[in-house]
């Protein structure tokens, strides 16, 4: 059990806890890929081809193979253990969609903020909205760019993370790696009094 998906699309009868989390992050950071990799059911994607009109607003940072972008929602489900099922809601990263994801945030226990180490500051929008809402989050750096990873403490400082907020790196295309990132978030969320007196080991 544990990290492996249950292999069934039907939930076992023992399932009793649904954990809803958001998968957020700036444009083109790999949210849809992350949800698609981790989901045990066919993920729901609402992708649209990017238009020339959007070229000014949405800069894919030289990621030339990116031709579509999520306009409403990514959704996936993953059974983490016999008793915990994870429902992942990924929403568009661009600021103009903020009103949508605030609605989807309803009832969620926390969020995984995907980040790109080459453009850390682009995660700040999302992080500040989460903090305003009092929604706990973990930061996962999607390690797909060729940029070298700075030392951990430098990164925590760059993200201005409170002590205890998990910071992990992952590969959004790798099932094991995405599961690990999500587990670090869920452990953080399900630990009593998250954010308080919890030191990062």
């Amino acid at each position, binding site marked *: 059990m544990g990290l492996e998906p249950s292999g069934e699309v039907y939930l076992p009868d023992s399932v009793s806890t649904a954990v809803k989390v958001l998968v957020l992050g700036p444009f083109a950071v790999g949210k849809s890929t992350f949800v698609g990799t981790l989901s045990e059911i066919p993920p729901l994607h*609402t992708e649209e081809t990017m238009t020339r009109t959007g070229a000014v607003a949405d800069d894919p940072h030289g990621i030339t193979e990116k031709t579509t972008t999520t306009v409403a*929602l990514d959704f996936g*489900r993953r059974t983490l253990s016999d008793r915990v099922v994870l429902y992942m809601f990924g929403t568009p990263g661009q600021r103009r969609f903020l009103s949508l994801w605030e609605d989807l945030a*309803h009832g969620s226990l926390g969020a995984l903020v995907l980040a790109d180490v080459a453009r850390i500051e682009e995660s700040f929008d999302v992080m500040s909205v989460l903090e305003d809402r009092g929604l706990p989050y973990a930061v996962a750096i999607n390690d797909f760019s060729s940029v070298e990873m700075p030392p951990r403490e430098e990164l925590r400082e760059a993200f201005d993370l409170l002590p205890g907020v998990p910071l992990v790196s992952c590969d959004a295309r790798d099932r094991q790696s995405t599961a690990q990132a999500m587990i670090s978030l869920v452990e953080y969320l399900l630990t009593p009094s998250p954010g308080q007196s919890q030191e990062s080991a």
Partner: protein
Amino acid sequence: MNTNTVRRPELRWMLDDVLLPEVRSAVVLARDGLVITATGDIDESDADRFAACLASLRGASAASAEFCSDSSGGEPTWNQTLIELNTGYVFLIAAGSHAYMGVSTTKKVDMGPATQRFHAVVQKLGAELGTLPRSGDSDRS
């Protein structure tokens, strides 16, 4: 610990009332996008996906209210969303203040009686659900 209850299967009999001819399936979802109960020709995983999709749709619908203000000065409120496809319709209707009902039908559905029935069902569901937010479902609005 803040946890959510996944389903309330005991409400399914209430939802079964929407299964008129040409109705494919129906899902009742909480405001957070998780399934409360489902019926018709849909399995559990697809019910989860349909509910997530409907939650997003409801978010977009409510957000579009901003562009539909009239001179009365009151805040526009969302009541329902209807999608027409070449293969049928999707209805999304409020069921109380904490839940929504989505129904998928074929193109041949008899719109008049169907919408009447759907609204009768959400009234009943709303009475059952409206005062009972799911445990751990903090109301932020």
